[in-house]
């Protein structure tokens, strides 16, 4: 929480996606922290202690999204973690949501209404 708002960490290597999501989430009264790589994400996580994390699979660098999730888990994270993935990606990657301790997986393109409903349910 920061200034009475829930902090959400967004990790994606696509700056346009980050920007769109930030606008949607901020308009819905969330505090948004963004990071464009796994490394940056970890730094931001430690600095801001987010209430929820949304991370892209980030196919440009192989498995960098899943590695980020693994490191998060190793550091004793308790915040819900959602993975962003594309249908095509999931067919070929070996992401096992439950093994990684993920709270859920979102398909791209993100359905904004569904995302907001889910955040409301998780964080209030």
């Amino acid at each position, binding site marked *: 929480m920061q200034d009475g708002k829930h902090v959400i960490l967004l990790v994606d290597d*696509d700056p*346009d*996606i980050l*920007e*769109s*999501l930030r*606008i*949607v989430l*901020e*308009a*819905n009264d969330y505090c948004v922290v963004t990071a464009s790589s796994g490394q940056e994400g970890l730094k931001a996580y430690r600095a801001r202690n987010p209430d929820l994390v949304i991370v892209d699979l980030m*196919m440009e660098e192989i498995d960098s999204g899943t590695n980020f999730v693994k490191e998060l888990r190793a550091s004793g994270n308790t915040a819900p973690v959602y993975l962003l993935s*594309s*249908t*095509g*990606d999931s*067919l*070929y990657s070996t992401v096992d949501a439950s093994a990684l301790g993920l709270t859920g997986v979102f398909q*791209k*393109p*993100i359905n*904004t209404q569904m995302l907001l409903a889910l955040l409301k349910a998780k964080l209030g």
Partner: protein
Amino acid sequence: MIASPRGRKLIPIERELQERLTWFIRLRWLAAAGILIGAWLVTEVVHTDLSAAPLYLVGVAVFAHNVGFSLYSPRAEGNLPKLRRLIFFQIGLDWLALSFLVHFTGGIRSPVTLVFMFHLIIAAILLSRRSCYLLAASASLLLGIQTVAEQFELLSPPAAPEIYSPVPGSFSGFFAWIALTGLFLVTTYLATSITNRLREKEEALYDSERSRGRSYREMEALYRLGQVVNSTLDFKEVLALIAENAAKLLGMKACFIRLFDKTGKKLYIGGAFGLSQAYIDKGPVELEKSLIDSETLAGGAVQALDVTIDPRFQYREEARREGLVSVLCVPVSAKQKVLGVIRVYSAAPHKFSKQEQNLLKNLANLGAVAIENAQSYADLQALNEEKIWFARMTHHQLRAPLAAISGALDALPYAGTLNEKQTDLVARARRRVQDAFETIRDLLDLAAAQRPLREQEGESVLLAQALERAIETARERARNKGIALQVEIPANTRVFAQAADMDRIFSNLLDNGVKYTPAGGEVNLRVDQQDGEVQAQVSDNGIGIGSEDLERIFEGFYRTQEAKSSGEMGTGLGLSIVKKLVDRWGGRLELESKRGKGTSFTIFLPAGDQ
């Protein structure tokens, strides 16, 4: 030609007869000499009452006609009937001379009559049995005529000399003994000539039998290998088998097949038999250091009697330790491209025959075919993998910007209030982006559906469970459109496939059903199982497909006129994906449709284990 152990070539019958004729003529020189010497002996040494002149005359006559024969006989070469006639003619003339000799040495009681025997023995070697009987009969006739002529005193031979009826105290008995010994010798010589001939024949026959047996075994092995080559794409397996067969068929200690690496400068192991692991692991052969291989590649088969001292050989010391002595090396080449070499090694010094070289060449050819087959298949697979990888990358590259556009469009209303016109434009843009997503997804699915199955891919899939999501999505769409969707899937129905592929097949079919059925219509999914086969039918009472389109709708990007004018978006790839996925799992697809009445797809798939 097959060589006998004596190095003599087996020859066709003309050549053989020709050879025997020459031998016959050679004998006659001896006979003529014998007559002249005999005439001299009986007239000058023994002093019989026989007159010398006619005897000498006969000897000279025999000599003369033999000169004629030796000059004429090469002309009959290669002509079988001519050769036979010549032999008959020679025997005839011989016997005429012999008849004179009989007459001048005392008539029918003369021991010279025995000489007729020689010709009969010679005839037995040269001519057929029938001809021999004919000759025997003519000899008898000749002597018979002489006997009758003497009996009726038409002929009056000189009185039988005393050596025929020995007078006590004379040495005539000795002469008879010597003459008889001569007869024995000639008879023995002639008879053994026959048996020698027979023995040679027998040996040649035995040789040819043995080599036929070997050829048969070789052919059988080549045939067996040919079958293996055609039935497997694992060329390593084939090469190992070829190495084993090469060593065994040639009776050699070991065999090695070496193939070029990508640089074309080193030869690595393709298959080996009878060699220790240490020898196999000794490293690649470098073409520059291995003259025997470069010679082989340049000129076909090359052999070395002792590889442990042959400077053309790279690993001499290792070969010595391994107990390898002689080597035969032939290239393994296919369609103008040299793939490597095959070598066989003996444990003792051995010179490889032409036949052995040919066998190894045949084996090398088989190996080349196996390698080419496997290579073509691997290339094809690599190409397919590359295609799928390319599709994946394209998919990702196209999706990322679309996802960004989609996100921006979603965020637009949160960045400020939009007027009605703007809201409508955003909605249109979002719909088109959604279409683009579907096209990309279908293209990827199509590429994935064409990937050949790997071994052990597929499992027993519980259909009701695998289709949950597809049915849920279709149900929602149907509800929105006012269409009744009915689903009947027995809870325990299983198919042998992959859940993701089943999801794609039925998502597509249900989606099509809902898309192309007007509001108020119905879409049904019914699954049934019969005798190890699962039958799943997706039917609707929608716009249907005209008969002229039935064939084409499984082609990629094809959409019927009705589908296009229905206002529904579609890529035209869905059915193409369905068809490929059904094929992939060994199923089949039936389609029934009538324009304006509805469509029914029935898919048959092998049932999975319970």
